[in-house]
């Protein structure tokens, strides 16, 4: 129990994906926990929820969202938050995470994780909204560092400082995606270890790892394919500094069968155990 929120270290888990539903409910493989994409189980009353209920009956579940739009200048969507909270309570999710980003403005949703300008104005804005969400949920919100392909002009601090100050100011948790750090470090030209050095690890509740796609001029956070060793090594370094936290593999395109996906996730143990 290394984080200040007393949220458990669940071990190495896997993102719940529709292509694996049948295998999971029928074969009941041993998996430490599943992370579910919150919005996939919202605005539905049918089959996705049926599967999720069956998974949640058997496995620890955490929720990971993509549409809270915590950095948007639109009003917080109270209906969305209410549905999110109801879903959390329904499945007994141990925590709810989303991204340090905005996804839309003026009532439209781009369904993309758009970058924040790392300014004092944005910091105050996001911190206030995080506190409001936490008051509503009655629990700490866990925010993930996003992959970015553009750095907005006018930044007065690097992303790692923004994330750390935000977490302190809003008293929220951090989901540290080490693949995102790697991808952004290549896209923007910084040393990923500088990022790792700045993270307040007592707030790190969870880690993400994933594959990505290198286009030469930039890297896309595609969540395709296996995790490369430099990302695994970043996980190892961050995990040691945190003194442990739950680890999750995201594989979201060209998803292989369950066993292969799970085996890739379990590779994390080679690196967080200090053997690599």
């Amino acid at each position, binding site marked *: 129990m290394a984080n200040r929120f007393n949220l458990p270290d669940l071990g190495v888990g896997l993102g719940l994906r529709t292509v694996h539903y049948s295998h999971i409910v029928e074969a009941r493989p041993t998996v430490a926990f599943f992370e579910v994409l919150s919005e996939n189980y*919202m605005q539905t009353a049918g089959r996705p929820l049926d599967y999720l209920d069956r998974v949640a009956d058997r496995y620890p579940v955490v929720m990971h969202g993509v*549409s809270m739009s915590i950095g948007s200048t639109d009003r917080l969507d109270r209906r969305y938050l209410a549905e999110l909270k109801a879903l959390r309570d329904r499945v007994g999710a141990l925590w709810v995470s989303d991204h340090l980003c905005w996804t839309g403005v003026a009532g439209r949703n781009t369904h993309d994780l*758009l970058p924040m300008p790392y300014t004092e104005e944005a910091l105050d804005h996001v911190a206030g909204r995080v506190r409001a969400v936490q008051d509503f949920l009655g629990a700490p919100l866990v925010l993930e560092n996003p992959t970015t*392909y553009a750095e*907005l002009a006018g930044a007065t601090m690097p992303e790692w400082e923004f994330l750390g100050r935000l977490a302190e100011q809003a008293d929220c948790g951090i989901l540290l995606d080490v693949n995102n750090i790697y991808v952004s470090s290549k896209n923007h030209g910084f040393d990923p270890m500088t990022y790792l050095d700045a993270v307040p690890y007592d707030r790190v509740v969870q880690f993400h790892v994933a594959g990505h796609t290198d286009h030469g001029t930039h890297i896309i956070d595609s969540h395709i394919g296996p995790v490369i060793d430099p990302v695994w090594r970043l996980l190892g370094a961050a995990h040691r500094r945190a003194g442990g936290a739950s680890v999750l593999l*995201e594989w979201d395109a060209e998803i292989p069968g369950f066993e292969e996906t799970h085996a890739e996730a379990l590779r994390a143990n080679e690196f967080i155990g200090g053997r690599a």
Partner: protein
Amino acid sequence: MKREATADAIGTHERASATPVRDAASHAPVGAAPSLPERLDLRFMQEWFARIVTTPESEPAPVDEGSALALATPSATLTSLERLEIYRRSYHARLVECLADDYPALQHHLGEEAFDALCRRYIARFPSTGPSLNDFGRHMAAFCRGEALPEPGFAADLASLEWAIVLAIHAPTARVITEADLAGIAHDSWPGACLIANPSLRFMRLEYPANAYFQAFRTGGNPVLPAANATNVVVYRTGTSIWRMELAPAALVLFEALAGGARLQQAIERAAPLLDRAEDIQQVAGWFRSGVASGLFVGVAAD
């Protein structure tokens, strides 16, 4: 009545934090930027960024090389504009993928290029406003009717059928009744019996044999555009399976009436004019039994 399963229909978009993979950054048409205020506050930046991202890729985005610098810094390998273009491509690619998930047979019918173009027009016409993509494709059938497609009526029918499958996936789950549940109903109570419809039921009157096309597509065939020929289809879900069943005109009226709350006698009377011969009334009993056995109903109430 023959029913066909669509057990592997997904209906849920793997809306993750992943970015769709597309070609490397490229130079896009350069557009006219808005006049910039002295200080770009957060609201202005977000509105401008969103306008750039959501502008169709066939059009110049409201940004030029100079103004892009006011919004985003360049990297060692990409200009500011090229970096913003990554987001514009991802926005459109993600939503096209979402529609392709919902409409695989429509994509097959139109071909990838025409389907992609159709989707981009759809995205411009119906931008997403909700947190989930589960209902993003809901306007596709009506949209197809107004588009310059080879056969917009067929495209619309196919889209209606595929959207009915999505709706069935997301409709509430209910335990269906079986013939055994009907055993306790007294013979003279049957005319006044009411059935409660499976909440996933969707009835469709189609101008084209879209279900046959869809079935051929799903089973690995390479169906071609069929001639117009009216068909009726019901789509519904039992457990995790989605079912499609073609119905005779009278059967459609019978089941629609029952699903709408009509008593059995009333439903039969509505269907009767569509029956060819008096003895076909016996067929109604067969349809009814088959409908119950197939899972069209989840409850029955008899006086």
